[in-house]
């Protein structure tokens, strides 16, 4: 098995064009598991973990770009103002995994249990892709098309994700049956977008891909309008509305029974997490701690 070691993105894309079957390896925390278990025998690996272009993040024109090669550890250290993303990163594996694992790898694997994915969905992120002769970007939901299936072409690499910076609070929560180092049984990211007067909710591990609870989003945005909360964060949302929102979020889940949990519990957990996340967001707005 060859291991290709490009020094720049350009070189990497050329190599990928010449050898589309070469499997990109970033942190290797998914790739090496597959190799060790003999589930996958790629002809070649292309090591992209040193490409400077993938290792950067930046803010420009009100947008945030997160390079595919940024690790969870760096997100926690350098991007702590992006609360949901930081919280999601903190839930990934152990410190060793967070020091190696990248958001690009999470996208590449495309597991519905990938913890960065609900955050990208709630940010409504575009996934930026490139090959030697073109660059394109696809919305998060067009990138993941099924369980571990992506829209990535064989000659493409993931450059990163880009989204409009959001003003407003948000959070990420994940259920697992132990208190650390656990694969998600259900995950939820809620982002309040004060400028768009929208609430976005994404669910992980309760469907073949990450799902958005669109009906619940519309419902709660209207309730917030009705109660005057968008203009006056002190205005309370009726208790029933919280419950109705939670129910709608749970209804958006399409969970299954598996070794990690039952469908019934997953749905139940989505409702609980939805209610809590909305409560935290409203409290944060009341206290004026919502950050861009």
């Amino acid at each position: 098995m060859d291991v290709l070691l490009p020094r720049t993105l350009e070189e990497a894309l050329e190599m990928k064009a010449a050898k589309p079957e070469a499997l990109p390896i970033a942190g290797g925390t998914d790739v090496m598991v597959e190799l060790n278990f003999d589930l996958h025998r790629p002809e070649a690996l292309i090591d992209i973990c040193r490409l400077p272009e993938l290792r950067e993040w930046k803010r420009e024109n009100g947008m945030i770009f997160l390079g595919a090669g940024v690790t969870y550890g760096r997100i926690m250290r350098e991007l702590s103002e992006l609360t949901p993303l930081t919280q999601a990163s903190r839930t990934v594996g152990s410190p060793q995994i967070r020091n190696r694992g990248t958001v690009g790898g999470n996208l590449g694997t495309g597991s519905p249990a990938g913890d960065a994915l609900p955050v990208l969905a709630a940010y409504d992120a575009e996934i930026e892709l490139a090959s030697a002769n073109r660059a394109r970007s696809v919305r998060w939901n067009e990138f993941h098309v099924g369980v571990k299936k992506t829209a990535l072409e064989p000659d493409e690499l993931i450059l990163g994700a880009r989204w409009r910076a959001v003003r407003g609070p948000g959070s990420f929560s994940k259920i697992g049956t132990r208190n650390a180092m656990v694969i998600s049984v259900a995950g939820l990211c809620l982002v309040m977008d004060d400028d768009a007067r929208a609430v976005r909710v994404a669910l992980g591990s309760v469907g073949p891909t990450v799902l958005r609870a669109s009906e619940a989003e519309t419902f709660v945005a209207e309730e917030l309008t009705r109660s005057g909360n968008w203009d006056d964060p002190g205005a309370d949302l009726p208790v029933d509305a919280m419950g109705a929102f939670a129910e709608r979020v749970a209804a958006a889940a399409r969970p299954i029974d598996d070794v990690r949990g039952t469908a019934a519990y997953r749905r139940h957990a989505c409702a609980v997490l939805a209610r809590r996340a909305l409560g935290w967001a409203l409290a944060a707005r009341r206290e004026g701690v919502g950050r861009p």
Partner: protein
Amino acid sequence: MGDTRVRERTRGGIGEDVARIDGLPKSKGAFAYASDLWADGMLWGHTLRSPHPHARIRSIEISAAVASPGVHAVLTAEDVPGKKTYGLEFADQPVLAWDRVRYVGEPVAIVAAEHPELARRAAARIVVDYEVLPAVTDMKEALEPDAPKVMEFGNVLRHVRIVHGDPDADADVWVEGYYETGMQDQAPLGPEAGLAVPAEDGGIDVYVATQWLHVDRQQMAPCLGLPMEKVRVYLAGVGGAFGAREDVSMQIHASMLALHTGKPVKMSYGRAESFLGHVHRHPSRIWMRHGATRDGRLVNIRARLLLDGGAYASSSTAVTGNASTFACGPYEVPNALIEGTGVYTNNPPCGAMRGFGAVQACFAYEAQMDKLAAVLGIDPIELRLKNALSTGSVFPTGQVIDGTAPVREVIERCAAIPLPPEEPTGPATRDPITVPGGAQNVGHGEGLKRGVGFAAGYKNTAFSEGFDDSSEAWVRLSAGPAGPLVEIRSAAAEVGQGVYTILTQIARSELGVERVILDPSDTNIGSAGSSSASRQTMMSGGAVQLACGAVREALFERVRAREASSDPAGELRLEAGQVLESELPLGPIERFLDEPIEETRVFHHRPTEPIDERGQGAIHVSFAFAAERAVVEVDEDLGLVRVIQIAAAQDVGSALNPRSVEGQIEGGTAQGLGLALMEELQVVDGRIRNASFTDYLIPTILDMPPVVSVLVEEPEPGVPYGAKGVGELSTIVAGAAVAAALRNATGRELNRIPVKPDDLVGLAEPPTSSGPPAAPDVPGPRSVPEYFGLGAGQMEILANDADDA
């Protein structure tokens, strides 16, 4: 006369917190585990396993595998040189399956190749033609007359019936309960591994991570068709055991491949294979009725236990015996009827795991004690104290408990440990990592309920029911280059529990010499018995103590012979490298060591009796007791749990190394907590669905609370230093205490462990039962295979060994 300096005490002896001799290399990553073994030119072995829970093997086609690159051998049952079966208690398990496979994961063929990958690929080219047969994968159905038969003689492995007092005695109040426990795995971090090296004499040298070198050899030699002395087993670095290494895994396979190819063969299981390659904790179903007087005295207990032994016997018969004899808990009860059945099914085989049957029983009887307390309106601790066993109490098998039995003390001292302070309530007032869900940010303090639960339990130290699991040790005292030196040889397996350190402590105390060398453990000395049953400190420690005593006597003879001036009535003693006479120094020990002194001794515990037709007999050697209190916090909306504190009090006899004892209490607690909250092999239709550390969850440091331990020291008469075994008790009580705390927090029944989030939020109904199965018809109280004359395993062979000697 020697020097007259004021003597210090010998350092590093018993009673001290001596640092573990393997501690530093293990924490620095320098320790060589069995999976690190290497020999030049070695081959790698790989095992092809059954994909079916029950099937007939029509044919096995190996030619494609043989022709694969780098392959040196492909062996099947036909190639087993000697006896085709092995087993700890009965040789009912095929080395390689022929005719039938009885569980998913059963070895069918083995391959040796130049690279593990080549071996794996070659194994994938073996074509086995299976005719799938109906399987029985439910332990209760296994007892039904029309159930598929796992063994020709049926599915009953053992049925124990214990009749104590008058089982028809009536009581004022009765409580009833049904309980289930899941299949826990020992999950040792070091998977099964070893290296077999063919020797010039036609024999084999095997380096392996195991718990009992001699019982491995006793099973290996007949299968390899070799005399015992040509099979030499050496202990390789053990990465945890907990019972999983009591049975043979890759030992015979690697030896067969090595003998066949004439090359060293290494086998090293991966994580997934490890889950298939060792036995597990028996899943259980337990029905209990407790009768008591209105003022809370136990009058009568009825217990029915069913244990799923899986496809082969392993140590299931002993586990069934233990679960049954301990079914009443550490309480005085004048009348009882206990019936325990171990069954064969087409599930993965179950056998030894820390707690050995006492764990399942404790979960049930402690839930019953809490139920009884609630019905009677008596404080649960009070109820336990009222009924606590003490020295002189009669065990359900009629055995009088003649050793120490500080049951009241462990209960009272555990209950007296201060409770942790209440957490501040309300969102945003505490670190989110401290709420249930930990690092996952699922709550900021919402929906939390605290609960407190208590459990007491007990277990035997060493093997029971007439088994003489003796331990041998050799000790040599010589004048080393830097003063006197003790060398110890013992086959005791260090499995991470600290026995090596204890043996050196004993030698220091017995011989007053600080420099102690421990030789590697191997079969070139007599058996040390198993590193299991909480027995090694008592047994191998006892053997080292005896051997040191013999060395000391020989030394004193020399001293008396040479020191004409010495007072013949004066008492001799060894301390800090000196010989003392009537507390006055006579001289350094090495002055008398122009010739080294060596002695070998064997330690036997007192004999025990087999169980009779009515389940009676003095069957256990010594009893040890423990109590734990768990404080938990439950997120009632999400069904997630954080254990806040474990308070533990344990009857240890005497603590030879208090820090090590505390380590055992903490580690054992983690394993019990794991059973209560998360650890379960999910077996569906005979298949393990979560054979990985991704999905078989064991507690992380964020799941483990602080453990506050109290050691209750009342030396046990007739036992070396009065020290009781400490390895298992905390596992027995921790699961029961955590489950009780969850019941206390939620008010739910929670009659099955592991407790799942679904149980805690009420999405799942507690399991119910249509009632216990009828008692099966068995020829007697011993294991059923014995009555059918199935080739015996270790018992017969040990007896033969004794004849040879």
